[in-house]
């Protein structure tokens, strides 16, 4: 699958062959850093002064590069497809190689960042448990009531959340049994076939 680059995008990228490889590599580093932490316009101004161009040009260059990298990572295009997509820009061979290297080096991390953008439910992070026995309460003395207290650590969109819950031993065994069955499902022929055939 080839990437479709718009005219505007191609214009922005046209800045890249005008500077050295070291600068392009630096732009690549800035692009990934911006994906990780967010943009910082001051960087554009510094670079613009050093290269003697307008800060807009630098910004477009970096943004074009960012978009190229994120689209390629999102679609998980092959090396060959990436090379062919970039070929239409008419860049020198050395620049093409550099861009490919940037893609391959950063693809995994970019995909991780992108996966955090998806709508997500709270996801399991950790579980702490404790066995308690209730001996008495205000309304009933001399009890022996075992309970398992659970602290469930969850993650959602980077936020850490904890919930404290309780259950009795019988329900705990039931939970374990049900969830083990759930795990077993992945090993069935049906699921294996689905996983094998969706590529």
């Amino acid at each position, binding site marked *: 699958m080839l990437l479709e680059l718009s005219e505007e995008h191609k214009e922005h990228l046209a800045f890249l062959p005008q500077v050295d490889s070291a600068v392009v590599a630096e732009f690549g580093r800035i692009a990934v850093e911006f994906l990780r932490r967010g943009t910082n316009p001051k960087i554009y101004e510094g670079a613009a002064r050093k290269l003697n161009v307008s800060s807009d040009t630098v910004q477009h260059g970096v943004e074009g590069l960012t978009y190229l990298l994120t689209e390629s990572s999102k679609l998980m295009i092959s090396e060959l497809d990436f090379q062919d997509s970039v070929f239409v820009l008419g860049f020198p061979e050395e620049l093409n190689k550099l861009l490919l290297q940037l893609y391959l080096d950063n693809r995994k991390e970019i995909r991780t960042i992108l996966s955090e*953008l*998806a709508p997500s439910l709270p996801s399991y992070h950790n579980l702490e*448990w404790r*066995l308690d026995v209730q001996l008495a309460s205000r*309304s009933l003395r001399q009890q022996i009531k075992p309970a398992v*207290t*659970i602290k469930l650590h969850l993650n959602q969109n980077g936020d850490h959340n904890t919930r404290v819950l309780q259950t009795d031993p019988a329900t705990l065994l039931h939970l*374990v049994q*049900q*969830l083990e069955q759930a795990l077993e499902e992945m090993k069935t022929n049906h699921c294996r076939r689905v996983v094998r055939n969706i590529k």
Partner: protein
Amino acid sequence: MELSESVQKGFQMLADPGSFDSNAFTLLLRAAFQSLLDAQADEAVLDHPDLKHIDPVVLKHCHAAAATYILEAGKHRADKSTLSTYLEDCKFDRERIELFCTEYQNNKNSLEILLGSIGRSLPHITDVSWRLEYQIKTNQLHKMHRPAYLVTLSIQVFIDKSYPIMKCDLVGKLKDASKSLERATQL
């Protein structure tokens, strides 16, 4: 067990065959247990024809006294001898003491369950349901190709709520907890 004067007075009236004949006594006793243990019981529990001849104020007083005593006895897990001693002090005759102890014995389990369920506790997990899905793509990321589990724990607070969560190592940890539980029960 600390019981108020009001309870004691109520019981003294209950002991008196002049105020409560055998039949009335039995009915009132059963009504007291019923009010406490039967979720659908209401004021009509005292509306029995054989209790009509008794002054309603006295009836309510004795009913309240009996109910209070039953709860206190249940709370402290009173045994037959404790019950007998107190009832003797209230001038109950042998027959009424026996009747009270029998009724108490019959209702003891329900009473303890009721008392044990009172009180604040953490949200209690009652059930789990799960869904296995295979994630193919999102609008941000294509070719994901990974399985995911969606786990919902059913929880009873005072109303039923469900918290959906995704599972990874949840089973491992829950298994550790249940193994420790088994070991603890064997000690």
